[in-house]
């Protein structure tokens, strides 16, 4: 999100109400998934900053680490979307158990390539 400066008061209001709505409507499980997502995002940002500010020398290692974060992030986000009860109608063929199995398979494949690429 990019809160613009012109409408600061309404903005913070809106963000607050968003935070409130989020806290009220989200189950604990999804919140823990979200916490993991935030962690992955921060880890990815840290690596990216390191790459820009310090060095990108073993570029493949950076890519592997960064792709690990991004890949894990989207796989987890996918899992979150699939198990979210609000999306039940969209994912008729994917049960929560199936979603977790998919997530596990995707992560294994992803980290196989990550490991191979670390060098």
């Amino acid at each position: 999100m990019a809160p613009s400066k012109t409408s600061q008061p309404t903005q913070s209001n809106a963000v607050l109400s968003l935070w409130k709505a989020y806290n009220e409507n989200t189950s604990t499980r999804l919140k823990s998934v979200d916490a993991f997502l935030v962690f992955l995002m921060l880890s990815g940002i840290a690596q990216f900053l390191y790459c820009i500010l310090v060095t990108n020398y073993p570029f493949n290692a950076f890519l592997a680490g960064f792709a690990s974060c991004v890949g894990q992030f989207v796989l987890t986000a996918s899992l979150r979307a699939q198990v979210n009860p609000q999306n039940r109608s969209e994912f008729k063929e994917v049960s929560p158990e199936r979603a977790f199995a998919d997530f596990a398979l995707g992560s294994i494949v992803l980290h196989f390539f990550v490991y191979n690429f670390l060098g």
Partner: protein
Amino acid sequence: MTATTAYQVPANLSPTTVANTSSLLRIVALALISGAAIASRLFAVINFESIIHEFDPWFNYRATKVLASEGFYAFWNWFDPTAWYPLGRVVGGTIYPGLMATSGVIYSALRAVHLPVDIRNICVLLAPGFSALTAWATYMFTKEMKDESAGLLAAAFIGIVPGYISRSVAGSYDNEAIAIFLLMFTFFAWIKAMKTGSAFFGTIAALFYFYMVAAWGGYAFITNMIPLHALALILMGRYSSRLYVGYSSWYAVGTLASMQVPFVGFQPVRTSEHMAALGVFGLLQIIAFAELVRSHVSSKQFQTLLFASVIGLGLLGTAAIVGLTYKGWIAPWTGRFYSLWDTGYAKKYIPIIASVSEHQPTAWPSFFMDLQFLIFLFPAGVILCFKQLRDEHVFVIIYAIVASYFAGVMVRLMLTLTPVVCVTAAIAFSTLLDTYLNPEEPEAIDEAPKPEASTSAVAPDTSSAPTKKQKKAAPPPAGSTLAELVTKAPGTSKRKTGVFGLDTRLLVVANAIGMLVFFVWHCTWVTSNAYSSPSVVLASSNPDGSQHIIDDFREAYYWLRQNTAEDAVVMSWWDYGYQIAGMADRPTLVDNNTWNNTHIATVGKAMSSSEEVAYPILRKHDVDYVLVIFGGLIGYSGDDINKFLWMVRIAQGVWPDEIQEPNYFTRTGEYRVDDQAPQTMKDSLMYKMSYYRFAELFGGNQPTDRVRGQQVPKTGPTLDYLDEAFTSENWIVRIYQVKKEDPLGRDLKTANAFEQGKKRKRTKPSPRRKAIA
């Protein structure tokens, strides 16, 4: 339920029987299609022998032999000092290893079960084997678009369509042999992932994408097709969490996987060709986040703000990519890519690409030749996709548009058009059959339809009808259990449109079957006549009609193999580099890899300049033998004289002062080899080597070049710096040995003159002699 049927449908079948029978029929049909696909590709083996075809396959074969005999690591680290002499080539890092790895795995697997199959036979039969898999993948893909019956038709079409056979006959051991299967299967997995929102299929798509990247440079087609589809869906307002899951899992895993291939390396994050996929990935993340926020907040103001910030971020991302391109961090489009948009580009800037015949624009007749009646059904199928326009149909439509364009630009890309033509044609064809095989009659408007009960006439139809129209939205005939199966799809109770009577049905269906029969006929004819020639071995027919094999290439290559030193360097035009390396096992200056334009231009210069100029070039590159292809005697049109202008053009690109294309034409702008040929042409090494002693064959009669249809001079060219070493039976391959410097330090021309006892009076000027020494 008053609907009447045009012919009787068996009423006492249980749904399970129908389902089981139809699935059995499907399996049998797929097995037969696979058999037909494999069998029709074996013409080359039956007419000739089990041999590797053409040019590139020879390199793949040679690499596979290294892989099979020395193991994967040796293959991975293989540096080939004999190619691109004296530069050498890092083979492991400059190839797509998927094809060789596939053959290597099959080879090892067969050996593990104690089936000692020759690696050559695996290579020869790989393409037909994978064509069966392609048929299956196309079936799966089309099934997602319409239903099983369309899938079977599509599988049958792709199994025998010449557009695909042209690149996958037995012996055509090239990357495309496995790539089309991977293409179709990746697309199938993508459609499935997008439809069901399953990360599993997304991962499968990524894995097959990885395989595709490892197998064929055309993977960029997938890299851009899938994002294009996703983008189109977003723009159509069809974003869904399923799309997010499918695309994200494919891209995140697939991109990382693609970077494992050394030849691709960091390209997926560094070149413009791959940026579309990255951009759509970023866009999807933003949209997904926005959707999440939206689900929690309903404030109108907030939502507009969100919308604005999504667009803002999208623009920012695009600007970032453009900025990075300017700064040089992301490489701009490559020349090969530009040549897809501007067909004149390659000819102007990269003649080496334009010189390849398969990079020429497609001629109209070849669409009919390669696709026959499918090309007529193709637009109909696309329109049918528009009629339903589910998410997956958007994919087919985009694919059809993009591939049609590319197929028009380059003959070679006909290959990517063929699958989508088969799919859409199958959709159109099966819709036709569905309509006319459906026993339902529409509601009569004025009078009751006459009950058709001529069971004897329709006996053959009834067996195929149930499988052909399972999902057709049709109201059930009263009381039949079969009908319950049919009503799976939500159909309205009455049909307003339809077909009356049996005669129309029979007429249309008979016509349709007629078209199919002609299609099979055409495919068989094209395959056996046009696409099954190995081009290493040529065939002609004797006066009595029997086949006469022209085996000059192998004759010459084996001569090289057996009569020359193992490190003797052979110079030829780059087309024959792989064959010389594969069959003669001798170092070559240039080959079909064409990675170093200057090196090729050097060869072009040597071929197109006079002996005196060419000789130092040859000596500097340690060339021992020069090989030319000459078709003038037997009428083989793919010879070096016909390719000569490309050599001149490529050389001119590097040495514009020394080589000029107009010098090789007559004053009237004709390309001639007879007495009117310009002096530059007559002096060129290529001309001399081609026609050296050619006139002697005709015993004083007027010698005729049968390819160009021109009369060449009775007194042929003379050679001072080269010796004729070998000429094959039909003169197709001529090999010349480069003479060493004269031991007495004379230049070779004068030395020759001295040997022949001619011109003894005209003494050599001594300063010149000193200069040479």
